[in-house]
């Protein structure tokens, strides 16, 4: 018997299970083994009461009540607080000795299990939320059969949970062949097999909805383990809209390709046309002019003065037409020519052009002023044509007046605007919109010569540079042509 007491004492001292006695009424701890000290991180329980160790005071009420009613509690999991404030879960059993008013109890730390379980619960809750609220259909496949699915799956496939589960396999929601010609069944089992062997799959798939309408899907398959069972989780995204958008882009691109091919063909045609214009239209003109001249020379004694005047008019008209043809060709060549960008010193160019015009036209009475150092990016040859036309016009419409022609630049909306200004005869702003139309003239031929193609050419060059051109003027006061590049 003595040995028995010793034996129990050793068990009490060495056990990893906490053991203790306390008074029922006040919870004063009468005795506790070392395991108990370790559990609560105390040297001694002296002066402490059970209530101090419950993390939630209502737990003690619950325990007391149960002890009163049935005399014992078994494996109750309760959150305790150590002396240093940290909490742990203890599994707690106790017995009440009512006569003595004493409780005898044992306890072990089950925190590790509790925390793991809680983390698992939380992650499960998260997964559940994801599963239920996802915009993609998510379903679980066991041996090629659907065993569970989220609400979005029902939306995507347009059927009830019962119908999904009855359909069993996603194959039922797919056409027999995939768009690439592969057999759906073969492909499906191949994908499932790869997924189960640990290789996640991501691919496009043709699906049917419950009512038979097809849709494009993007599927990702992953291997998951649920309750020790290896399953496949499928995430199916309806990409019909994306596919349609892609198709629209593809069609638009095709359209664009076709149109640019058409444009190219048209351009070639235009080239052939201008070639034939330059050849075939000029040849008869040469004959008209040449033979009129021959008549004038060889038959002047047979053709009277009036007849000779008519012949001269025939010649003048054919030469005028030849110039028209040439200018139209220049205009069309400018539209076709490839832009060769470079740095263009506009001020220097304007000065050089003005000097030539001044000499050629005997216009010494006119002052030319250019703001120095204006430089722009553009095609030097084409911009030269712009300068020549604008300055030529300026000189032309100065007539024999004294005055000034100016080339300069202003800045509007942080962009440079170049201008050519003259103090010549100007124009009525009411006709400003007609200035740039081919063959539109604001002056009679006998006032100022010209055929009305110069500004049309200038405008085309400016447009090809992505710029704008406009004019301001007043009759008798002059005109200003502005352009951007």
């Amino acid at each position: 018997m003595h040995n028995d007491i010793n034996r129990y004492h050793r068990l009490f001292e060495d056990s990893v299970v906490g053991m203790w006695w306390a008074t029922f009424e006040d919870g004063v701890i009468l005795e506790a083994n070392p395991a108990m000290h370790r559990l609560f991180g105390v040297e001694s329980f002296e002066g402490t009461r059970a209530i101090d160790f419950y993390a939630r005071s209502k737990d003690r009420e619950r325990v007391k009540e149960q002890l009163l009613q049935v005399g014992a509690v078994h494996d109750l999991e309760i959150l305790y607080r150590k002396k240093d404030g940290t909490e742990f879960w203890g599994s707690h059993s106790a017995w009440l000795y009512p006569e003595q008013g004493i409780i005898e109890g044992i306890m072990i730390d089950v925190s590790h299990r509790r925390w793991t379980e809680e983390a698992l619960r939380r992650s499960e809750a998260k997964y559940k939320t994801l599963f239920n609220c996802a915009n993609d259909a998510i379903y679980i496949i066991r041996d090629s059969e659907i065993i569970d699915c989220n609400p979005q799956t029902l939306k995507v496939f347009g059927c009830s949970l019962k119908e999904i589960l009855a359909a069993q396999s996603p194959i039922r929601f797919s056409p027999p062949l995939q768009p690439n010609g592969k057999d759906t069944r073969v492909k499906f089992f191949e994908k499932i097999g790869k997924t189960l062997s640990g290789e996640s799959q991501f691919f496009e798939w043709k699906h049917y909805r419950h009512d038979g309408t097809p849709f494009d899907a993007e599927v990702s398959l992953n291997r998951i383990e649920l309750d020790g069972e290896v399953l496949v989780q499928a995430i199916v995204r309806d990409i019909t809209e994306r596919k349609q958008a892609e198709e629209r882009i593809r069609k638009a691109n095709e359209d664009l390709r076709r149109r640019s091919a058409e444009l190219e063909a048209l351009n070639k045609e235009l080239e052939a046309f201008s070639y034939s214009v330059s050849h075939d239209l000029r040849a008869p003109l040469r004959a008209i002019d040449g033979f009129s001249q021959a008549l004038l020379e060889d038959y002047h004694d047979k053709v009277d003065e009036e007849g000779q005047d008519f012949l001269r008019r025939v010649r003048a008209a054919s030469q005028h037409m030849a110039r028209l043809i040439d200018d139209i060709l220049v205009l069309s060549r400018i539209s076709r020519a490839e832009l060769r960008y470079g740095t263009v010193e506009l001020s220097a160019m304007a000065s050089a052009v003005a000097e030539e015009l001044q000499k050629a036209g005997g216009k010494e009475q006119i002052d030319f002023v250019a703001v120095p150092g204006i430089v722009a990016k553009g095609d030097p040859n084409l911009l030269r044509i712009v300068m020549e036309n604008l300055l030529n016009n300026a000189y032309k419409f100065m007539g024999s007046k004294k005055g000034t022609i100016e080339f300069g630049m202003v800045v509007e909306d942080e962009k440079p605007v170049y201008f050519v200004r003259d103090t010549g005869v100007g124009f009525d702003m009411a006709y400003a919109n007609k200035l740039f139309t081919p063959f539109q003239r604001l002056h009679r031929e006998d006032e100022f010569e010209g055929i009305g193609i110069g500004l049309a050419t200038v405008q085309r060059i400016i447009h090809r540079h992505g710029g704008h051109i406009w004019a301001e003027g007043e009759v008798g006061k002059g005109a200003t042509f502005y352009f951007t590049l």
Partner: protein
Amino acid sequence: MKEKTILLVEDNPDDVALTLRALKKNNISNDVVIARDGAEALDCLFGTGKCEDHDGSTLPVLVLLDLKLPRISGIEVLQRLRSDERTKLVPVVILTTSKEEQDLIDGYRFGANSYIRKPVDFSNFIEAVRQLGLYWLVLNEAPPGGGK
């Protein structure tokens, strides 16, 4: 072909008449042989086809060549001319309506000696013919072996 002959390759009869008139106006009295297309031009130069009767030993002193011709184009005639030992030195003046850049480039690349665009104004044309006659028939020394 007589000595100092001019070969005029031109399909348009009006242009032929006007060119002959311009030559006459400038007192250029060389014989003018007219070829109405590229094939005829080659016959005249190499003594083939309808020109079989002449042995091809004499060559024109000058070829006035239009570019836009039926059957064989002016540029092709020029190429054939320049690739043949007998004719590769014959002076060729392209006399055409076109001033398309590509025609100019091709003309010079295949060995034309001059490129003249026929002006519509006949007075200018007479002046152009005067200058080319003066240069090619008077001032210029013909290559040895050609143009005799």
